[in-house]
Protein backbone atom coordinates (compact mmCIF):
# COMPACT_ATOMS: atom_id res chain seq x y z
CA UNK A 1 0.00 0.00 0.00
CA UNK A 2 1.08 3.56 -0.72
CA UNK A 3 2.60 5.30 2.26
CA UNK A 4 2.86 9.05 2.00
CA UNK A 5 3.60 10.88 5.20
CA UNK A 6 2.66 14.56 5.08
CA UNK A 7 2.17 15.05 8.79
CA UNK A 8 5.66 16.22 9.68
CA UNK A 9 4.23 18.92 11.95
CA UNK A 10 3.17 16.10 14.28
CA UNK A 11 6.65 14.61 14.22
CA UNK A 12 9.23 13.62 11.61
CA UNK A 13 10.22 10.14 10.59
CA UNK A 14 13.61 9.28 12.10
CA UNK A 15 16.39 10.30 9.72
CA UNK A 16 18.12 7.19 8.33
CA UNK A 17 21.56 8.55 9.29
CA UNK A 18 20.36 8.81 12.89
CA UNK A 19 19.54 5.12 12.90
CA UNK A 20 23.14 4.40 11.83
CA UNK A 21 24.56 6.71 14.46
CA UNK A 22 22.60 5.40 17.44
CA UNK A 23 22.81 1.68 16.63
CA UNK A 24 26.36 1.13 17.99
CA UNK A 25 25.39 2.95 21.20
CA UNK A 26 22.38 0.67 21.60
CA UNK A 27 24.67 -2.35 21.40
CA UNK A 28 27.29 -1.02 23.78
CA UNK A 29 27.06 -1.17 27.56
CA UNK A 30 26.39 2.44 28.46
CA UNK A 31 26.94 3.46 32.02
CA UNK A 32 25.14 6.14 33.93
CA UNK A 33 26.71 9.39 32.71
CA UNK A 34 27.03 10.56 36.30
CA UNK A 35 29.49 7.75 37.09
CA UNK A 36 33.25 8.01 36.83
CA UNK A 37 34.02 4.57 35.42
CA UNK A 38 34.70 3.96 31.75
CA UNK A 39 31.08 3.06 30.99
CA UNK A 40 29.86 6.27 32.54
CA UNK A 41 32.51 8.24 30.67
CA UNK A 42 31.47 6.88 27.27
CA UNK A 43 27.97 8.10 27.98
CA UNK A 44 28.91 11.48 29.38
CA UNK A 45 31.37 12.13 26.53
CA UNK A 46 28.70 11.32 23.98
CA UNK A 47 26.29 13.70 25.71
CA UNK A 48 28.85 16.49 25.73
CA UNK A 49 29.60 16.16 22.02
CA UNK A 50 25.95 16.11 21.05
CA UNK A 51 25.05 18.93 23.40
CA UNK A 52 27.57 20.93 21.39
CA UNK A 53 25.76 20.12 18.13
CA UNK A 54 22.41 21.24 19.52
CA UNK A 55 24.01 24.46 20.78
CA UNK A 56 25.62 25.06 17.36
CA UNK A 57 22.30 24.73 15.58
CA UNK A 58 20.95 27.81 17.36
CA UNK A 59 24.21 29.69 18.05
CA UNK A 60 24.19 29.00 21.79
CA UNK A 61 26.87 27.75 24.17
CA UNK A 62 26.80 24.08 25.19
CA UNK A 63 26.15 24.91 28.85
CA UNK A 64 23.05 26.82 27.77
CA UNK A 65 21.34 23.63 26.58
CA UNK A 66 19.20 21.69 29.05
CA UNK A 67 17.93 18.39 27.70
CA UNK A 68 14.32 17.53 28.48
CA UNK A 69 11.85 14.79 27.58
CA UNK A 70 10.01 16.91 25.00
CA UNK A 71 9.21 20.37 23.74
CA UNK A 72 6.28 20.27 26.13
CA UNK A 73 8.58 19.76 29.10
CA UNK A 74 10.83 22.55 27.85
CA UNK A 75 7.84 24.92 27.70
CA UNK A 76 6.62 23.90 31.15
CA UNK A 77 10.10 24.22 32.62
CA UNK A 78 10.71 27.62 31.08
CA UNK A 79 7.41 29.19 32.05
CA UNK A 80 6.92 27.74 35.50
CA UNK A 81 10.61 27.76 36.41
CA UNK A 82 11.32 31.32 35.27
CA UNK A 83 8.08 32.66 36.72
CA UNK A 84 8.90 31.10 40.10
CA UNK A 85 12.46 32.46 40.07
CA UNK A 86 11.23 36.00 39.29
CA UNK A 87 8.25 36.16 41.58
CA UNK A 88 9.79 39.01 43.54
CA UNK A 89 10.09 41.16 40.45
CA UNK A 90 6.54 40.69 39.25
CA UNK A 91 3.72 38.38 38.25
CA UNK A 92 2.79 39.45 34.73
CA UNK A 93 3.35 37.30 31.64
CA UNK A 94 2.58 38.13 28.01
CA UNK A 95 1.83 35.46 25.41
CA UNK A 96 -0.11 35.18 22.17
CA UNK A 97 -3.47 33.51 21.67
CA UNK A 98 -1.99 31.05 19.18
CA UNK A 99 0.57 29.43 21.47
CA UNK A 100 0.70 25.65 21.69
CA UNK A 101 -1.25 23.98 24.53
CA UNK A 102 2.05 23.19 26.25
CA UNK A 103 2.41 26.96 26.71
CA UNK A 104 -1.27 27.87 27.20
CA UNK A 105 -2.01 25.23 29.82
CA UNK A 106 1.01 25.99 32.05
CA UNK A 107 0.01 29.65 31.78
CA UNK A 108 -3.51 28.77 32.89
CA UNK A 109 -2.15 27.02 35.94
CA UNK A 110 0.15 29.96 36.67
CA UNK A 111 -2.92 32.20 36.54
CA UNK A 112 -4.51 30.02 39.20
CA UNK A 113 -1.52 30.52 41.44
CA UNK A 114 -1.59 34.30 41.24
CA UNK A 115 0.13 35.25 38.01
CA UNK A 116 -1.53 37.54 35.50
CA UNK A 117 -1.37 36.64 31.82
CA UNK A 118 -2.10 38.84 28.80
CA UNK A 119 -2.96 36.88 25.67
CA UNK A 120 -2.28 38.99 22.61
CA UNK A 121 -4.38 38.61 19.47
CA UNK A 122 -2.89 37.99 16.03
CA UNK A 123 -3.77 39.40 12.62
CA UNK A 124 -5.44 37.36 9.87
CA UNK A 125 -2.10 35.80 8.96
CA UNK A 126 -1.44 34.74 12.53
CA UNK A 127 1.25 37.36 13.08
CA UNK A 128 1.74 39.00 16.48
CA UNK A 129 2.22 42.77 16.34
CA UNK A 130 5.44 43.72 18.19
CA UNK A 131 3.85 47.04 19.13
CA UNK A 132 1.16 45.18 21.05
CA UNK A 133 3.94 43.61 23.08
CA UNK A 134 5.56 46.96 23.72
CA UNK A 135 2.24 48.36 24.88
CA UNK A 136 1.41 45.40 27.08
CA UNK A 137 4.67 45.47 29.03
CA UNK A 138 4.27 46.99 32.48
CA UNK A 139 6.55 47.20 35.54
CA UNK A 140 5.35 43.82 36.80
CA UNK A 141 5.99 42.01 33.49
CA UNK A 142 8.53 39.23 33.88
CA UNK A 143 8.17 37.05 30.77
CA UNK A 144 7.15 37.50 27.17
CA UNK A 145 6.47 34.13 25.54
CA UNK A 146 5.79 34.18 21.80
CA UNK A 147 6.28 31.16 19.59
CA UNK A 148 8.97 31.28 16.92
CA UNK A 149 6.70 29.82 14.26
CA UNK A 150 3.27 28.27 14.37
CA UNK A 151 3.28 24.62 13.34
CA UNK A 152 -0.42 24.62 12.46
CA UNK A 153 -0.57 27.54 10.05
CA UNK A 154 3.14 27.97 9.36
CA UNK A 155 3.45 31.67 10.17
CA UNK A 156 6.86 32.82 11.41
CA UNK A 157 6.60 35.50 14.11
CA UNK A 158 8.68 38.71 14.16
CA UNK A 159 11.07 37.25 16.73
CA UNK A 160 13.92 39.68 16.15
CA UNK A 161 11.74 42.73 16.72
CA UNK A 162 10.24 41.17 19.82
CA UNK A 163 13.70 40.34 21.14
CA UNK A 164 14.76 43.96 20.71
CA UNK A 165 11.76 45.15 22.71
CA UNK A 166 12.21 42.69 25.56
CA UNK A 167 15.91 43.46 25.76
CA UNK A 168 15.22 47.19 25.91
CA UNK A 169 12.54 46.67 28.59
CA UNK A 170 14.53 44.16 30.64
CA UNK A 171 11.91 41.42 30.33
CA UNK A 172 12.76 37.75 29.79
CA UNK A 173 11.94 36.52 26.31
CA UNK A 174 10.91 32.88 25.95
CA UNK A 175 10.04 31.44 22.57
CA UNK A 176 8.54 28.07 21.77
CA UNK A 177 10.65 27.12 18.74
CA UNK A 178 9.45 23.54 18.47
CA UNK A 179 8.13 24.05 14.94
CA UNK A 180 11.05 26.25 13.86
CA UNK A 181 14.31 24.89 15.30
CA UNK A 182 16.01 22.55 12.85
CA UNK A 183 13.72 23.65 10.02
CA UNK A 184 14.61 27.30 9.53
CA UNK A 185 17.68 29.26 10.69
CA UNK A 186 17.38 30.21 14.35
CA UNK A 187 19.94 32.38 16.12
CA UNK A 188 19.29 32.98 19.80
CA UNK A 189 21.98 35.64 20.17
CA UNK A 190 20.94 37.68 17.17
CA UNK A 191 17.30 37.64 18.32
CA UNK A 192 18.04 38.28 22.02
CA UNK A 193 16.23 35.14 23.08
CA UNK A 194 16.58 34.26 26.76
CA UNK A 195 14.87 30.90 26.74
CA UNK A 196 13.81 28.67 23.87
CA UNK A 197 12.07 25.30 23.62
CA UNK A 198 12.90 22.71 20.99
CA UNK A 199 11.88 19.17 20.12
CA UNK A 200 14.07 16.55 18.46
CA UNK A 201 11.33 14.83 16.51
CA UNK A 202 10.64 18.02 14.59
CA UNK A 203 13.94 17.64 12.78
CA UNK A 204 14.60 13.95 12.41
CA UNK A 205 15.55 12.96 15.97
CA UNK A 206 13.66 10.69 18.32
CA UNK A 207 10.42 11.58 20.05
CA UNK A 208 10.87 11.72 23.81
CA UNK A 209 13.74 14.19 23.50
CA UNK A 210 13.61 17.96 23.70
CA UNK A 211 15.79 20.78 24.89
CA UNK A 212 15.50 24.11 26.59
CA UNK A 213 18.01 26.75 25.68
CA UNK A 214 18.51 29.04 28.66
CA UNK A 215 20.76 32.04 28.28
CA UNK A 216 23.63 32.04 30.74
CA UNK A 217 22.62 34.10 33.74
CA UNK A 218 18.85 33.67 33.45
CA UNK A 219 17.55 32.36 36.75
CA UNK A 220 15.22 29.38 36.80
CA UNK A 221 13.88 26.96 39.40
CA UNK A 222 14.11 23.33 38.28
CA UNK A 223 10.83 21.79 37.21
CA UNK A 224 12.13 18.27 37.72
CA UNK A 225 13.88 17.91 41.06
CA UNK A 226 16.31 15.22 42.15
CA UNK A 227 19.97 14.82 41.19
CA UNK A 228 22.19 17.50 39.73
CA UNK A 229 22.06 16.46 36.08
CA UNK A 230 22.00 19.25 33.50
CA UNK A 231 23.79 21.61 35.84
CA UNK A 232 21.15 21.13 38.53
CA UNK A 233 18.47 22.49 36.21
CA UNK A 234 16.83 19.21 35.25
CA UNK A 235 17.14 16.12 37.41
CA UNK A 236 16.91 12.57 36.12
CA UNK A 237 19.33 10.25 34.36
CA UNK A 238 19.84 11.55 30.86
CA UNK A 239 18.11 10.02 27.84
CA UNK A 240 21.49 9.15 26.31
CA UNK A 241 20.28 7.65 23.03
CA UNK A 242 17.74 10.43 22.54
CA UNK A 243 20.38 13.08 23.15
CA UNK A 244 22.82 11.49 20.71
CA UNK A 245 20.06 11.34 18.10
CA UNK A 246 19.07 14.95 18.74
CA UNK A 247 22.65 16.13 18.49
CA UNK A 248 23.29 14.30 15.24
CA UNK A 249 19.97 15.49 13.83
CA UNK A 250 20.91 19.06 14.78
CA UNK A 251 24.29 18.73 13.09
CA UNK A 252 22.67 17.41 9.90
CA UNK A 253 19.92 20.01 10.00
CA UNK A 254 22.45 22.79 10.25
CA UNK A 255 24.68 21.58 7.42
CA UNK A 256 21.82 20.67 5.07
CA UNK A 257 19.43 23.45 5.95
CA UNK A 258 19.59 25.56 2.75
CA UNK A 259 19.12 22.53 0.47
CA UNK A 260 16.39 21.08 2.65
CA UNK A 261 14.48 24.34 2.82
CA UNK A 262 14.70 24.82 -0.92
CA UNK A 263 13.53 21.31 -1.72
CA UNK A 264 10.69 21.24 0.78
CA UNK A 265 9.49 24.68 -0.18
CA UNK A 266 9.42 23.76 -3.86
CA UNK A 267 7.37 20.66 -3.17
CA UNK A 268 5.04 22.61 -0.89
CA UNK A 269 4.52 25.25 -3.56
CA UNK A 270 3.80 22.64 -6.21
CA UNK A 271 1.23 21.09 -3.93
CA UNK A 272 -0.31 24.45 -3.14
CA UNK A 273 -0.53 25.58 -6.75
CA UNK A 274 -1.88 22.23 -7.86
CA UNK A 275 -4.61 22.27 -5.23
CA UNK A 276 -5.60 25.87 -5.88
CA UNK A 277 -5.76 25.19 -9.61
CA UNK A 278 -7.84 22.03 -9.36
CA UNK A 279 -10.16 22.72 -6.46
CA UNK A 280 -12.24 25.87 -6.07
CA UNK A 281 -13.31 27.45 -2.79
CA UNK A 282 -10.04 26.75 -1.00
CA UNK A 283 -8.08 29.27 1.00
CA UNK A 284 -4.58 29.13 2.42
CA UNK A 285 -4.12 29.78 6.15
CA UNK A 286 -1.17 31.63 7.62
CA UNK A 287 1.22 34.17 6.19
CA UNK A 288 1.58 34.12 2.38
CA UNK A 289 5.39 34.33 2.38
CA UNK A 290 6.70 34.47 5.90
CA UNK A 291 6.07 30.83 6.70
CA UNK A 292 7.64 27.47 7.46
CA UNK A 293 8.87 25.81 4.24
CA UNK A 294 6.88 22.59 4.58
CA UNK A 295 3.60 23.98 5.89
CA UNK A 296 0.47 24.05 3.76
CA UNK A 297 -2.60 24.75 5.86
CA UNK A 298 -5.85 25.04 3.94
CA UNK A 299 -9.52 25.62 4.55
CA UNK A 300 -11.53 23.59 2.07
CA UNK A 301 -15.01 25.05 2.00
CA UNK A 302 -18.29 23.14 2.56
CA UNK A 303 -16.70 19.99 3.93
CA UNK A 304 -15.21 18.79 7.18
CA UNK A 305 -11.56 17.99 7.89
CA UNK A 306 -11.85 14.61 9.57
CA UNK A 307 -13.71 13.20 6.56
CA UNK A 308 -10.99 14.48 4.25
CA UNK A 309 -8.32 13.00 6.52
CA UNK A 310 -10.04 9.60 6.60
CA UNK A 311 -10.49 9.44 2.81
CA UNK A 312 -6.86 10.44 2.24
CA UNK A 313 -5.78 7.82 4.77
CA UNK A 314 -7.61 5.17 2.72
CA UNK A 315 -5.33 6.20 -0.15
CA UNK A 316 -2.25 5.91 2.07
CA UNK A 317 -1.80 9.66 2.58
CA UNK A 318 -1.34 10.94 6.14
CA UNK A 319 -2.25 14.54 7.01
CA UNK A 320 -3.88 16.27 9.97
CA UNK A 321 -6.89 18.50 10.50
CA UNK A 322 -7.78 21.38 12.79
CA UNK A 323 -11.54 20.82 12.63
CA UNK A 324 -13.70 20.61 15.73
CA UNK A 325 -14.72 17.07 14.84
CA UNK A 326 -11.11 15.88 14.63
CA UNK A 327 -10.14 17.31 18.00
CA UNK A 328 -11.08 15.37 21.07
CA UNK A 329 -12.40 18.51 22.71
CA UNK A 330 -14.82 19.16 19.81
CA UNK A 331 -13.45 22.65 19.49
CA UNK A 332 -12.02 24.04 16.29
CA UNK A 333 -8.34 24.87 16.42
CA UNK A 334 -7.76 27.93 18.60
CA UNK A 335 -5.06 28.98 16.14
CA UNK A 336 -7.36 29.00 13.12
CA UNK A 337 -10.09 30.75 15.13
CA UNK A 338 -7.62 33.43 16.32
CA UNK A 339 -6.89 34.33 12.70
CA UNK A 340 -10.57 35.22 12.31
CA UNK A 341 -11.67 32.34 10.07
CA UNK A 342 -15.39 31.70 10.53
CA UNK A 343 -16.48 28.55 12.35
CA UNK A 344 -17.99 26.70 9.37
CA UNK A 345 -14.93 27.35 7.24
CA UNK A 346 -12.63 26.29 10.08
CA UNK A 347 -14.33 22.88 9.94
CA UNK A 348 -12.60 22.34 6.60
CA UNK A 349 -9.08 22.91 7.90
CA UNK A 350 -6.47 20.46 6.74
CA UNK A 351 -2.72 20.57 7.20
CA UNK A 352 -0.22 19.09 4.79
CA UNK A 353 3.19 19.33 6.42
CA UNK A 354 6.00 18.27 4.16
CA UNK A 355 9.47 17.18 5.13
CA UNK A 356 12.68 15.80 3.66
CA UNK A 357 10.93 12.44 3.38
CA UNK A 358 8.61 13.73 0.63
CA UNK A 359 9.16 13.56 -3.13
CA UNK A 360 7.68 15.07 -6.28
CA UNK A 361 5.89 11.76 -6.81
CA UNK A 362 4.20 12.16 -3.43
CA UNK A 363 2.93 15.57 -4.47
CA UNK A 364 1.66 14.23 -7.80
CA UNK A 365 -0.14 11.41 -6.02
CA UNK A 366 -1.85 13.77 -3.58
CA UNK A 367 -2.84 16.07 -6.45
CA UNK A 368 -4.42 13.12 -8.20
CA UNK A 369 -6.30 11.79 -5.16
CA UNK A 370 -7.46 14.92 -3.37
CA UNK A 371 -9.81 16.58 -5.92
CA UNK A 372 -12.17 13.58 -6.29
CA UNK A 373 -12.31 13.20 -2.50
CA UNK A 374 -13.25 16.85 -2.08
CA UNK A 375 -15.85 16.58 -4.84
CA UNK A 376 -17.35 13.48 -3.29
CA UNK A 377 -17.64 15.03 0.14
CA UNK A 378 -19.08 18.20 -1.34
CA UNK A 379 -21.75 16.18 -3.13
CA UNK A 380 -22.65 14.85 0.29
CA UNK A 381 -22.66 18.26 1.95
CA UNK A 382 -25.91 20.16 2.53
CA UNK A 383 -23.94 23.41 2.36
CA UNK A 384 -22.51 22.92 -1.10
CA UNK A 385 -25.40 23.35 -3.54
CA UNK A 386 -26.88 26.28 -1.70
CA UNK A 387 -23.66 28.18 -2.00
CA UNK A 388 -22.36 27.17 -5.40
Amino acid at each position, binding site marked *: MTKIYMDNASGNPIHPVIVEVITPFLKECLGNPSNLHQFGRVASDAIQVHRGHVADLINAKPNEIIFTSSGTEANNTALKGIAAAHKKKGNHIIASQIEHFSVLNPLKSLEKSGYEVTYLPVDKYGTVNPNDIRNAIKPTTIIVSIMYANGEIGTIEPIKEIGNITKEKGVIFHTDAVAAAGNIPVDVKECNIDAMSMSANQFGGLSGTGALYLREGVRILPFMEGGIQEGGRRAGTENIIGIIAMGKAAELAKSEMPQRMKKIQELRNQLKEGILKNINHVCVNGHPTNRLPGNLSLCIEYIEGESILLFLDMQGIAISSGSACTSRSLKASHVIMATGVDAALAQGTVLFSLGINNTADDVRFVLEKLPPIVERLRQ*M*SPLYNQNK
Partner: protein
Amino acid sequence: MQYSPKVMDHFANPRNVGEIAGADGVGEVGNPACGDIMKMSLKIKDNVIVDVKFKTFGCGAAIATSSISTEMIKGKTLEDALKVTNKAVAEALDGLPPAKMHCSVLAEEAIEAAIDDYLKKTTGKGLEKKKAHKHDERHEH
Protein backbone atom coordinates in the same frame (compact mmCIF):
# COMPACT_ATOMS: atom_id res chain seq x y z
CA MET B 1 -9.82 6.61 18.75
CA GLN B 2 -10.64 4.02 16.13
CA TYR B 3 -13.77 3.50 14.07
CA SER B 4 -15.24 0.03 13.66
CA PRO B 5 -15.04 -1.58 10.19
CA LYS B 6 -18.79 -1.05 9.91
CA VAL B 7 -18.45 2.70 10.49
CA MET B 8 -15.69 2.84 7.90
CA ASP B 9 -17.85 0.91 5.43
CA HIS B 10 -20.78 3.32 5.80
CA PHE B 11 -18.43 6.29 5.70
CA ALA B 12 -16.63 5.11 2.56
CA ASN B 13 -19.77 3.80 0.81
CA PRO B 14 -22.61 5.84 2.24
CA ARG B 15 -26.10 4.63 1.28
CA ASN B 16 -28.88 6.96 0.16
CA VAL B 17 -26.89 10.13 -0.34
CA GLY B 18 -28.69 13.04 -1.91
CA GLU B 19 -31.92 14.95 -1.85
CA ILE B 20 -35.36 13.78 -2.94
CA ALA B 21 -36.97 16.12 -5.44
CA GLY B 22 -40.45 16.90 -4.17
CA ALA B 23 -39.82 15.28 -0.81
CA ASP B 24 -42.79 14.97 1.56
CA GLY B 25 -40.75 15.89 4.61
CA VAL B 26 -37.38 17.57 5.02
CA GLY B 27 -35.44 17.98 8.25
CA GLU B 28 -32.24 19.91 8.66
CA VAL B 29 -30.54 19.96 12.04
CA GLY B 30 -27.32 21.43 13.29
CA ASN B 31 -24.96 20.09 15.85
CA PRO B 32 -24.27 22.59 18.60
CA ALA B 33 -21.33 20.55 19.86
CA CYS B 34 -19.18 20.87 16.79
CA GLY B 35 -21.15 22.94 14.29
CA ASP B 36 -22.09 20.25 11.81
CA ILE B 37 -25.25 19.86 9.75
CA MET B 38 -27.42 16.95 8.65
CA LYS B 39 -30.31 17.10 6.20
CA MET B 40 -32.78 14.27 5.67
CA SER B 41 -35.51 14.13 3.06
CA LEU B 42 -38.34 11.61 3.10
CA LYS B 43 -40.83 10.27 0.60
CA ILE B 44 -43.86 9.02 2.51
CA LYS B 45 -46.75 6.89 1.26
CA ASP B 46 -49.60 5.61 3.45
CA ASN B 47 -47.71 6.45 6.59
CA VAL B 48 -44.67 4.48 5.45
CA ILE B 49 -41.23 5.89 4.56
CA VAL B 50 -40.76 4.67 1.02
CA ASP B 51 -37.62 6.61 0.26
CA VAL B 52 -35.04 8.57 2.22
CA LYS B 53 -31.93 10.51 1.33
CA PHE B 54 -29.41 12.47 3.36
CA LYS B 55 -26.73 15.09 3.09
CA THR B 56 -24.24 15.64 5.86
CA PHE B 57 -21.55 18.19 6.62
CA GLY B 58 -19.56 16.49 9.31
CA CYS B 59 -17.10 13.89 10.45
CA GLY B 60 -16.76 10.23 9.58
CA ALA B 61 -19.13 9.21 12.36
CA ALA B 62 -21.73 11.75 11.26
CA ILE B 63 -21.68 10.46 7.70
CA ALA B 64 -21.79 6.82 8.81
CA THR B 65 -24.67 7.39 11.25
CA SER B 66 -26.63 9.29 8.60
CA SER B 67 -26.09 6.48 6.15
CA ILE B 68 -27.08 3.62 8.43
CA SER B 69 -30.07 5.44 9.86
CA THR B 70 -31.50 5.90 6.37
CA GLU B 71 -31.29 2.13 5.97
CA MET B 72 -32.91 1.61 9.35
CA ILE B 73 -35.97 3.75 8.68
CA LYS B 74 -36.62 2.89 5.06
CA GLY B 75 -39.83 0.84 4.81
CA LYS B 76 -40.85 1.67 8.36
CA THR B 77 -44.03 3.40 9.48
CA LEU B 78 -43.56 6.86 10.88
CA GLU B 79 -44.24 5.59 14.39
CA ASP B 80 -41.57 2.91 14.09
CA ALA B 81 -39.09 5.30 12.51
CA LEU B 82 -39.50 7.61 15.45
CA LYS B 83 -38.54 4.76 17.74
CA VAL B 84 -35.06 4.54 16.22
CA THR B 85 -32.78 5.94 18.88
CA ASN B 86 -29.25 7.19 18.56
CA LYS B 87 -28.14 4.26 20.70
CA ALA B 88 -29.69 1.81 18.25
CA VAL B 89 -27.93 3.62 15.40
CA ALA B 90 -24.60 3.44 17.21
CA GLU B 91 -25.12 -0.23 18.02
CA ALA B 92 -25.95 -1.02 14.41
CA LEU B 93 -22.53 0.41 13.56
CA ASP B 94 -20.85 -1.89 16.11
CA GLY B 95 -20.32 1.06 18.40
CA LEU B 96 -18.88 4.54 18.15
CA PRO B 97 -15.96 6.07 20.05
CA PRO B 98 -17.37 7.85 23.14
CA ALA B 99 -16.39 11.28 21.80
CA LYS B 100 -18.47 10.57 18.71
CA MET B 101 -21.77 9.57 20.34
CA HIS B 102 -23.13 13.06 19.84
CA CYS B 103 -22.93 12.60 16.06
CA SER B 104 -25.51 9.81 16.28
CA VAL B 105 -27.85 12.16 18.13
CA LEU B 106 -27.78 14.34 15.05
CA ALA B 107 -29.13 11.47 12.94
CA GLU B 108 -31.98 10.81 15.34
CA GLU B 109 -32.88 14.49 15.40
CA ALA B 110 -32.78 14.77 11.62
CA ILE B 111 -35.28 11.92 11.23
CA GLU B 112 -37.54 13.51 13.81
CA ALA B 113 -37.31 16.92 12.15
CA ALA B 114 -38.17 15.46 8.75
CA ILE B 115 -41.22 13.62 10.10
CA ASP B 116 -42.26 16.75 11.98
CA ASP B 117 -42.03 18.72 8.75
CA TYR B 118 -44.17 16.12 6.95
CA LEU B 119 -46.85 16.20 9.64
CA LYS B 120 -46.92 19.99 9.63
CA LYS B 121 -47.43 20.01 5.87
CA THR B 122 -50.12 17.34 5.88
CA THR B 123 -52.02 17.81 9.13
CA GLY B 124 -51.18 21.40 9.91
CA LYS B 125 -49.49 20.50 13.14
CA GLY B 126 -46.22 18.84 13.87
CA LEU B 127 -45.25 16.10 16.24
CA GLU B 128 -47.33 16.09 19.41
CA LYS B 129 -44.42 15.92 21.65
CA LYS B 130 -40.88 15.96 20.50
CA LYS B 131 -38.46 13.67 22.14
CA ALA B 132 -36.30 15.41 24.65
CA HIS B 133 -33.17 16.49 22.88
CA LYS B 134 -30.20 14.67 24.14
CA HIS B 135 -27.71 17.43 24.24
CA ASP B 136 -26.40 16.16 27.54
CA GLU B 137 -25.12 13.05 25.80
CA ARG B 138 -22.81 15.15 23.76
CA HIS B 139 -20.48 15.67 26.62
CA GLU B 140 -20.36 12.28 28.15
CA HIS B 141 -16.79 11.84 26.97
